[in-house]
């Protein structure tokens, strides 16, 4: 009944996580939750990289995943810094209330 796990299982899981992340990014108003969605997207990419690293017995996929995590950390630090600066000026975290650039 239980099939052995193949790379395809990991690919499907990765697509599911990616779509959930993209949906959160497009649908939510709260900018903190939108940044959490970005973390979900990067995690989906990492699942994909590790699955192929195992499939091809190639360590380069894991190295690349390490760099993805580094970029995710930098993104979170910078993004949250911007968020705090913006909250100090505008007193809101809802993205549709921050519309200075809207035409």
């Amino acid at each position: 009944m239980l099939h052995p796990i193949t790379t395809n299982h990991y690919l499907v899981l990765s697509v599911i996580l990616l779509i959930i992340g993209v949906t959160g990014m497009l649908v939510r108003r709260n900018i903190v939750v939108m940044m959490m969605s970005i973390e979900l997207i990067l995690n989906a990419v990492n699942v994909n990289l590790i699955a192929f690293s195992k499939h091809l017995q190639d360590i380069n996929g894991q190295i690349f995943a390490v760099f993805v995590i580094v970029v995710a950390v930098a993104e979170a630090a910078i993004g949250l810094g911007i968020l705090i600066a913006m909250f100090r000026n505008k007193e809101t975290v809802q993205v549709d209330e921050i519309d200075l650039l809207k035409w």
Partner: protein
Amino acid sequence: MLDTLFFYMFALLAVAGAILTITMRSAVHCAISLIGSLAGVAGLYLLQKAEFLFAVQLVLYIGGIMVLFLFVIMLVNLDSAARERQFHQRWIAGLAASLLAGGGAFWLVSKGAPSIKAGPPQSLPAGVGNIEHIADVLFRDYLAPFELASLLLLVAIVGSVVMAKKRTNERT
């Protein structure tokens, strides 16, 4: 057999945590659900014999990034935001777009999956663990990107401190 069971367990944890992350009302609940999702993904890394990334995921994502998120949630007062509308006015358009993209991605995976060739035989290199292997490759072949990554982190640290700093006595 046991691997299959563990895969479905961790996959369920990851997907359920992700869905709760984008649907919960309070940002703190979102962060806690995201921690569950990240832990599920960490378990999947362990199942695929990527022990180093498992440790990095636990220490750096759950221990580092999520604590940063929780600190920021504490700093910016989100109580009023939790009582407001949680979704955009045009959230249906966003949901439709992402479902369309998801359908396309599933179509691509199901079309491409049969053509994935079986990889080389799964064998552990004798006497070399995952962490030694990663260290060898990282410091031999990827030394320049490694140093660039450290520079990127330095810029990120300085930038976030400068941006989050309170501006007292501006003299410009």
